[in-house]
């Protein structure tokens, strides 16, 4: 009985998926038929079909989750990525912990955005709305084809094994279960903006009004993407056990690329809306944002890059994604080239030190940062194709090139919002900037004196970020808390705080790798680490060796309990870090696996200065994006 029900779920899932493909194919056909015969489209039934396709994809996804929950090993994806003894939570998250399931989630998000767009665009004119849905359904169709024909999540395995291979232990983590869905809600969400852009161009409605409509469809995925990146960073911090929060790993960079592009877009679309300029550039950015999202997927999925985030991958799938990206890019730019010339040329000029000027410089700097990230991530691939050599590009490359950029950017973020649209208003507000500058230099001097640090980069990092934060506080005070653009205030303040805390963290964090025998201790600068005790414990799906450590720093004494887990299926070791928070700083210990613990166990100790503030900054930035999404109407007054 039980068995039969399990198989039913997977059969229903496959049927829903195939039906979804057929219904999705119907949507653009319906649209094209009416366009060809110039008849009036029955919009309600047109949207209805798209909604049906969404519910079919949703049900396919739910059936896949059910198959994972009941451990239906007749499905290849379940067999390869799950196990009966796994806790329920990881059975569910295992659904998207593999290529097939996560591609289904990917498509679900494409469809979800189309669905939400239909629901929340009641007042939109039907031609723009229906054309957008048409493009969204085409994207959905392409990826459904890809899913069913190259990575069918319901593929059967015969004979049915009675046990699965298990989920990669490093993925058995509550944060990592939440990380991919948020990331997808982010960068897959940009598909809707992409469709909206193409629809705007095709229907000749790409205008300032389009910008006001499109804004919320940038803010929403941007917020999710920011949060997804933050979650990934937080996960890497405490799961990888390397003490850091950002490694400039190719997979991290892959999510950063669309983030930078969309951040540039959030700003440029304001110019389009308020100053009725920068139309072509905004269109290019909108295309770029979605293309980079797909490109990131390609980099992660194809196995082309070497990364800590090892994902089961397959070059053949990589090739399909490559063709999809190329086709979508080509099609989008062809539409752009043919249609943009009708909207008039972008030969408008920008007045020096006007608001739009500051956004132009913002885009200039962001494109520079984007170039650095793209080049740094793809250069090893280019070099291996053209020269057959392999190189690594690590944090130092990015840090040294991007640090000065960040300093300039912070100042710009402080000044830009004070400027006025269409005129040079700088002379009026100049005194404010000088006052704020003096205050921030004064504060930097105090901080530098208290922390006993003399270093140019340190001073620049602190001064620039303090400058931004103070200018925001000043603005809030000056405007007496009325008419504030909370979205911008929060995200800008968050970014300032982020750089402030990164600077502190960079200069004051300590790290120390050593081997300590049981009962022994090790000294490093003003830290003393003692290995007090160890014991092991058996769990359902792993065996765990704990170590008790005491860390002394001056008068503070912290006890930490890191561990090594030996998982059964598949057999693999993971290191569980132990982190104790002291004010805003962390004491952090990770143990290494050792064949012979009596000989001493390797530990990595990190003292992470002000790391708590980094997480708080991420929250602020995300909150800013969310406020931007819900508050966008009030902004007109600004």
């Amino acid at each position: 009985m039980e068995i039969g029900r399990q198989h039913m779920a997977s059969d229903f899932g496959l049927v829903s998926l195939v039906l979804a493909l057929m219904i999705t194919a119907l949507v653009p056909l319906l649209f094209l038929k009416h366009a060809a015969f110039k008849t009036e489209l029955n919009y309600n039934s047109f949207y209805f079909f798209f909604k049906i396709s969404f519910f079919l994809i949703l049900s396919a996804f739910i059936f896949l989750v059910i198959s994972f929950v009941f451990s239906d090993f007749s499905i290849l994806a379940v067999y390869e990525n799950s196990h009966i003894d796994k806790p329920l939570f990881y059975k569910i998250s295992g659904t998207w912990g593999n290529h097939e399931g996560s591609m289904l989630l990917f498509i679900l998000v494409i469809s979800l955005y189309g669905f939400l767009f239909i629901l929340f665009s009641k007042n939109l004119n039907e031609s723009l709305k229906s054309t957008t849905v048409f493009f969204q359904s085409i994207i959905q169709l392409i990826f459904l084809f890809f899913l069913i024909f190259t990575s069918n999540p319901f593929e059967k395995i015969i004979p049915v094994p009675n046990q699965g291979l298990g989920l990669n232990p490093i993925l058995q983590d509550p944060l990592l279960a939440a990380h991919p869905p948020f990331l997808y809600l982010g960068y897959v969400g940009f598909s809707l903006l992409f469709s909206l852009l193409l629809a705007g161009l095709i229907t000749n409605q790409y205008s300032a009004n389009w910008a006001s409509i499109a804004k919320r469809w940038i803010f929403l995925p941007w917020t999710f993407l920011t949060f997804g990146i933050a979650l990934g960073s937080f996960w890497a911090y405490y799961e990888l056990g390397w003490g850091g929060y950002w490694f400039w790993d190719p997979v991290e960079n892959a999510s950063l690329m669309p983030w930078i592009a969309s951040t540039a877009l959030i700003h440029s679309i304001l110019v389009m809306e308020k100053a009725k300029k920068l139309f072509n550039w905004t269109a290019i950015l909108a295309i770029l944002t979605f293309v980079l999202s797909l490109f990131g997927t390609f980099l992660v999925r194809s196995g082309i890059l070497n990364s800590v985030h090892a994902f089961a991958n397959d070059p053949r799938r990589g090739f399909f994604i490559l063709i999809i990206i190329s086709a979508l890019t080509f099609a989008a730019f062809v539409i752009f080239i043919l249609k943009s010339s009708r909207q008039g040329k972008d030969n408008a000029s920008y007045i020096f030190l006007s608001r739009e000027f500051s956004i132009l410089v913002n885009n200039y700097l962001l494109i520079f940062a984007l170039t650095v990230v793209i080049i740094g991530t793809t250069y090893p691939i280019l070099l291996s194709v053209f020269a057959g050599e392999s190189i690594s590009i690590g944090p130092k490359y990015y840090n040294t090139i991007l640090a000065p950029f960040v300093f300039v950017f912070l100042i710009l973020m402080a000044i830009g919002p004070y400027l006025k649209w269409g005129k040079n208003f700088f002379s009026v507000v100049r005194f404010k900037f000088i006052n704020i500058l003096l205050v921030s230099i004064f504060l930097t001097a105090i901080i530098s004196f208290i922390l006993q640090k003399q270093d140019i980069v340190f001073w620049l990092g602190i001064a620039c970020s303090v400058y931004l934060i103070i200018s925001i506080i000043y603005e809030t005070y000056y405007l007496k808390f009325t008419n504030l653009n909370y979205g911008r205030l929060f995200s800008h303040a968050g970014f300032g705080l982020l750089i402030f805390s990164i600077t502190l963290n960079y200069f004051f964090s300590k790290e120390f790798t050593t081997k300590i025998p049981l009962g022994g201790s090790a000294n490093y600068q003003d830290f003393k680490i003692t290995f007090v005790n160890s014991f092991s414990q058996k769990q359902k799906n792993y065996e765990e060796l704990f170590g008790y450590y005491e860390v002394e720093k001056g008068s503070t004494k912290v006890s930490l309990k890191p561990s090594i887990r030996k998982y059964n299926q598949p057999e693999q070791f993971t290191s569980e870090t132990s982190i104790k928070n002291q004010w805003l700083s962390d004491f952090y210990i990770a143990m290494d696996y050792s064949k012979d613990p009596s000989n001493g166990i390797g530990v990595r100790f990190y003292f992470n200065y002000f790391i708590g503030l980094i997480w708080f900054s991420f929250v602020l930035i995300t909150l800013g994006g969310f406020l931007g999404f819900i508050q966008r109407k009030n902004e007109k007054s600004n």
Partner: protein
Amino acid sequence: MRFLFCIFLFIYFLSTQLAFSSLDREIEIYKNIRCLVCQGQSLNDSNSDFANDLKKIIKTKLDNNETDKQIYKYLVERYGDWILFDPPIKTKTMFLWLIPLLTLIIGFYILRKKISFSKD
């Protein structure tokens, strides 16, 4: 304006040279070397056999007053450029720095063309 831009570029490259030289030299070297048998970790973050052996060798070399350059050369000869996280500057890696620089310059000229200085 162009003059300002040149000054900016100059300060920029000066600061990239100044940046990040304040850390402990030994750790700095470890951080720049990939632990070849690990997944994307640096020597500094790894306690694997391979990493510990390499650290030992580097430490001996540091004690023998070898320069960073000599140490990196030793490692690159044996394991290739892949072992360094900070790619060496040579003809084949030049574009890593040239392309961002070109973006800066071209972007600046486009910006310059779009801006009018009329006082309002």
